[in-house]
């Protein structure tokens, strides 16, 4: 053809889904190109998502913890915060990881093409070169890259509310991570994980928070009992939690952004804020890559439909990550990336085993990296109730956990959900410090088809937060001796 370069596999987008797919394909012996418009690999997650948010959240957690140490006999002075240095730390963290990705791409001989990609047809991608450390300024250079297989991993971006004015005091998560404004009063529009995580950071650094959410609850998706523990522990951060409430207008004035609300929790008057964070969701980039040129179907909302092998309606084109649907999470993108790469390799190299690869994880865990963390996986109690599935529940309160008490953090609990009939575990949730590091065990238990005996008879070390999993299984089974006895009927 007339292409400038040709590859076995071209991956469009260098986020967690994209680089994982590219690296896996290269490891399987394919010639691979990875197209990314920004200067660094890692996508939203490493540059302006998962990683920088956690770098800041960790610092906030240490500050909050230190401030509670006086009761324990250790008095720290009020810390002084150097925002520039904190930002530099965050950038160092993301830099370490994105540099690592570059190095690993080189070791794998993956060709990284800097530029904006768009589909020409089912065999060719147009790449318009971009430059600059920040942004995606086009150089004017254009090339055509031919592929045997294309993996679309172009991700998503923050939804912008159309009626919000353009003002540096109105930001999305990316802007919030820049920490250019030190607000006294901050509004979080959207009570999901991303907004509440950023709110935690700003609150610890001194801001008073308001949050407005159209739905009746914060952290929708998680069971109410889990969220309740987080909410009680964090009540001190908030002036107003406005549920069933809409943001309808905003006016930028010299002394602040004046926001008008409507609905159940709406104050009568517009409220003044120093900073407004829009965190109302993310929208997939499906409509921005000229997918139609290859005949790839893109749904109304911009998601690209795929099968269990991550293949679109066009045989040579795959898609993975945020762009194929919910949940929009990095770990889902990575696993999907591996599957797509394996299927491509199987087909290109004629390997029957790889050809059959498919995404068939039973469950994908979710974590809010707030303080305490909230983590859940599989069936929630609410979901079981809604679907009429009969469950047996094992709940272990951390007030009975020696380690949680020793840490001075016994507000949490661990909950396991078993199918009443098959006795197998079908879900679970943890609220408490380090919940996210432990939810993987529940995911493994679900994938392995474990029941309460399997988990309860597995010896977990004492005294750990992790043993709360074994205890919760024992509670479900009626054999736990670290909680009050079950009332005899």
């Amino acid at each position, binding site marked *: 053809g007339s292409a400038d370069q040709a590859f076995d596999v071209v991956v469009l987008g260098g986020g967690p889904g994209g680089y994982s797919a590219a690296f896996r394909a290269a490891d399987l012996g394919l010639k691979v190109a990875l197209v990314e418009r920004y200067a660094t690999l890692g996508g939203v997650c490493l540059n302006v998502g998962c990683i920088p948010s956690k770098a800041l959240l960790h610092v906030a957690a240490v500050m909050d913890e230190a401030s509670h140490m006086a009761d324990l006999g250790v008095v720290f002075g009020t810390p002084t915060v150097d925002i520039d240095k904190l930002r530099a730390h965050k950038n160092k963290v993301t830099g370490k990881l994105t540099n690592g990705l570059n190095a690993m791409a080189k070791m794998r001989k993956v060709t990284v093409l800097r530029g904006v990609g768009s589909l020409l047809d089912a065999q060719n991608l147009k790449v318009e070169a971009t430059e600059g450390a920040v942004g995606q300024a086009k150089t004017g250079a254009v090339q055509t890259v031919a592929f045997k297989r294309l993996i679309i991993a172009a991700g998503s971006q923050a939804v912008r509310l159309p009626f919000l004015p353009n003002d540096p005091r109105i930001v999305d998560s990316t802007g919030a991570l820049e920490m250019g404004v030190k607000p006294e009063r901050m509004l979080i529009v959207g009570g999901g994980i991303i907004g509440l995580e950023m709110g935690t950071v700003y609150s610890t650094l001194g801001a008073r928070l308001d949050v407005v959410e159209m739905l009746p609850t914060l952290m929708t998706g998680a069971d109410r009992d889990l969220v309740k523990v987080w909410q009680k522990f964090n009540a001190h951060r908030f002036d107003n939690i406005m549920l069933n409430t809409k943001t309808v207008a905003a006016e930028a004035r010299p002394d602040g952004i004046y926001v008008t609300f409507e609905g159940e929790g709406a104050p009568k008057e517009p409220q003044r804020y120093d900073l407004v964070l829009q965190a109302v969701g993310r929208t997939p980039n499906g409509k921005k890559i000229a997918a139609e040129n290859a005949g790839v179907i893109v749904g109304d909302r911009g998601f690209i439909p795929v099968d269990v092998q991550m293949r679109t309606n066009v045989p040579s084109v795959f898609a993975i990550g945020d762009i194929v649907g919910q949940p929009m999470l990095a770990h889902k993108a990575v696993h999907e990336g591996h599957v797509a790469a394996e299927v491509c390799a199987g087909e290109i190299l004629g390997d029957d085993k790889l050809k059959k690869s498919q995404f068939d994880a039973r469950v994908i865990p979710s974590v809010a990296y707030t303080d305490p963390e909230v983590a859940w996986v599989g069936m929630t109690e609410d979901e079981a109730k809604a679907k009429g599935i009969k469950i047996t529940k094992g709940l272990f309160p951390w007030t009975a956990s020696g380690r949680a008490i020793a840490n001075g953090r016994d507000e949490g609990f661990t909950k396991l959900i078993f199918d009443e009939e098959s006795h197998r575990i079908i879900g679970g949730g943890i609220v408490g410090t380090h919940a996210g590091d432990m939810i993987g065990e529940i995911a493994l238990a679900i994938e*392995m088809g*474990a*029941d309460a*005996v*399997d988990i309860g*008879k*597995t010896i977990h070390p004492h005294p750990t937060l992790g043993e709360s999993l074994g205890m919760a299984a024992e509670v479900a089974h009626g054999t736990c001796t670290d909680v009050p006895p079950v009332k005899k009927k």
Partner: protein
Amino acid sequence: PASAAARPLVAPRRAADEKPIASPAVRRRAWDLGIELQFVPGTGPAGRITQDDLEAFAA
């Protein structure tokens, strides 16, 4: 599980002191049934004995 029943029940070859691969719940069920797991064929990966294998053996 559906295909497990269709698979032939080959007598397992295990060393005398070898603990067969089986989850805690399967092991417990085996004592309840008075069955030595040693002699139960496993259809799971690496000969892992599933709950179904045990019930099939007991039946």
